[in-house]
């Protein structure tokens, strides 16, 4: 019933998150939509919104035209998509057994294990990525050992740093906890009686996993995938440090447009496309999740 008091409660509860979304999502997106339609200024940045001579709104769709006329940007998007997708998949494959191990270990050990998963957050992000530069670099003991092994079986030595491989390693490393945590939160809530029932009714370990554990964990899989895929899609620091020229992603180009080329309108166009794609993808994931439930 919509009594006045009820309506007040609704606003009190829903108000703060709504305000948050408006201030930190809707307004920035609007600013960006507007920026993507403006001309760039004479010395970079943005031209005045109202042209000085006529005093009318000075807007253009030319920036979008540029995006669609040069295939290189679309290719970069597809490549970034592929990197983010591979990262998500590798994270899932690594995180699932880890989350399951934590969820099934004794209650008193679980908090400690979760703490270990988030422990890397306690040191600086960039330092951790630079550490990978050393690990994957040509002087590293790992790479020289690997090359020695490859040499004995007659394969040319490989470089790892400044390759797409290095980017994926960095992306997986940084995003892994974001996959482990939602999976763990989901798996920990599973009723162990369900596995007993499945086993009792004739399911071996393999079938117990695929028919009971995995389908029940899908909400955790979707949450983890969203938390990994979307940030991985737009990231620039990791390809910057580990990727060299070959491993560049769309995030690097956006950063370049804003900071180096100072072409803000075109940077906004690329950001807009990225945002639209991320939202569309999140919507698609939610739709798939709903379909698989009914």
């Amino acid at each position, binding site marked *: 019933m919509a009594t006045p008091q009820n309506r007040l409660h609704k606003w009190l509860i829903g108000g703060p998150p709504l305000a948050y979304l408006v201030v930190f999502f809707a307004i920035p997106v609007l600013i960006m939509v507007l920026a993507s339609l403006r001309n760039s200024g004479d010395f970079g940045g943005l031209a005045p919104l109202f042209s000085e001579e006529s005093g009318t709104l000075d807007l253009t769709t030319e920036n979008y035209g540029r995006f669609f006329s040069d295939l290189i940007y679309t290719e970069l998007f597809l490549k970034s998509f592929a990197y983010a997708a591979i990262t998500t998949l590798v994270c899932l494959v690594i995180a699932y057994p880890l989350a399951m191990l934590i969820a099934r270990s004794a209650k008193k050990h679980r908090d400690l294990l979760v703490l270990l998963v988030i422990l890397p957050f306690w040191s600086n992000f960039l330092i951790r990525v630079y550490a990978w530069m050393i690990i994957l670099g040509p002087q590293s003991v790992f790479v020289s050992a690997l090359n020695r092994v490859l040499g004995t079986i007659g394969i040319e030595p490989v470089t790892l740093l400044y390759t797409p491989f290095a980017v994926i390693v960095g992306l997986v490393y940084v995003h892994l906890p974001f996959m482990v945590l939602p999976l763990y939160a989901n798996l920990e809530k599973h009723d162990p009686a*369900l596995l007993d029932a499945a*086993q009792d009714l004739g*399911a071996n370990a393999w079938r117990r996993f695929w028919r009971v554990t995995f389908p029940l964990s899908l909400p955790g899989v979707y949450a983890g995938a969203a938390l990994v895929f979307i940030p991985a899609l737009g990231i620039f620091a990791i390809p910057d440090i580990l990727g060299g020229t070959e491993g560049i992603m769309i995030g690097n180009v956006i950063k370049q447009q804003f900071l180096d080329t100072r072409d803000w309108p075109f940077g906004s166009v690329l950001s807009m496309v990225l945002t639209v794609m991320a939202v569309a993808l999140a919507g698609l994931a939610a739709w798939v999740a709903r379909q698989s439930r009914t």
Partner: protein
Amino acid sequence: MALLEIRNVTRRFGDFTAVDNVSLSIEAGEFFTLLGPSGCGKTTLLRMIAGFDAPDAGSIVLDGKAMTGIPPEARNIHTVFQSYALFPHMTVAQNVAFPLKMANVDPGQIGKRVEEALEDVRLTGMDKRYPNELSGGQKQRVAVARALINRPKLLLLDEPLAALDAKLKESVQLELIGLQKEVGITFVYVTHDQSEALALSHRIAVMNHGRVEQVDEPSKIYGFPRNRFVADFIGQCNLLDGEIRACAGERMTIALAGIGDVVALNIESDAPGLKGALALRPEKVAIGRDLPKDADVNRFTGKVHDFLYLGDVTIYIVELAGGMRIEALLPNSSAGRTKFFEAGDEVQVGWRYDAGHFLND
């Protein structure tokens, strides 16, 4: 040879013995109940039969085959869990079809068999619902249908009615009896509810502290409990301490502490001098202002100390001259009267010599 043989099975958790040297043999087609108070080891025993746990000593033999080392999924035994453990992401039909899929039954047959199974438990038309859209009674029936669909040799049920309200329980009990008779599968049923055990079972094993105290038909368990624990746990029972004075044929004389000499049935040819208790059900104790004299009846005078009005019956607690108390049960059957005596009334209590029997310690 019995279908299920439990031979000297023991299970310890650290220093604690949860199941202590239990031996049972359960026949094919039987409705067998494990009855006992909470924590007596019923679930532990059931889990060993299902294969989730292994005995520390002893063996379990199903249909002549030792079950040692055989995992639950390879045993022809299904369980109805207390929480039902229905798969929340599957519909009723998918839940019931699960064991068939695990047994790699031809997919073309599954639909028909699921339909039949749901019909058996009166759930036709519920096949597309999810477990969270069912009532407690419906969930219980899905769990039973799922456990029975591929006809296991043995069905284990761990307190399957504990979550149902009293009224529903009664109708589900009748259904379970009917279903068991119809499918002819051996049921091993666990409960701590003695009236449920008496109503359902062909035979009952009464357990206490991990041991089996008595295995018998319900009427024997109730009528001739073998020791104080069984007498006290099943229904109401007067346990009057005493010592055997003399035995003669089918009768014996017992000296009851604080009451005097009484005559009782001599069933196990107990010897004079044995100490123990006379077990006497309250409904076998007559109560009246003036009971007729009879050589077969033990009669004593006392005062009504208190009474419990239970609707259909009233239990009177009568204090005898020596201070001992005896419970007598009287049906409230005469029209217009709700009780016959008040606290403080002088009354006589009496029971036939064959109404009770002696339990030696």
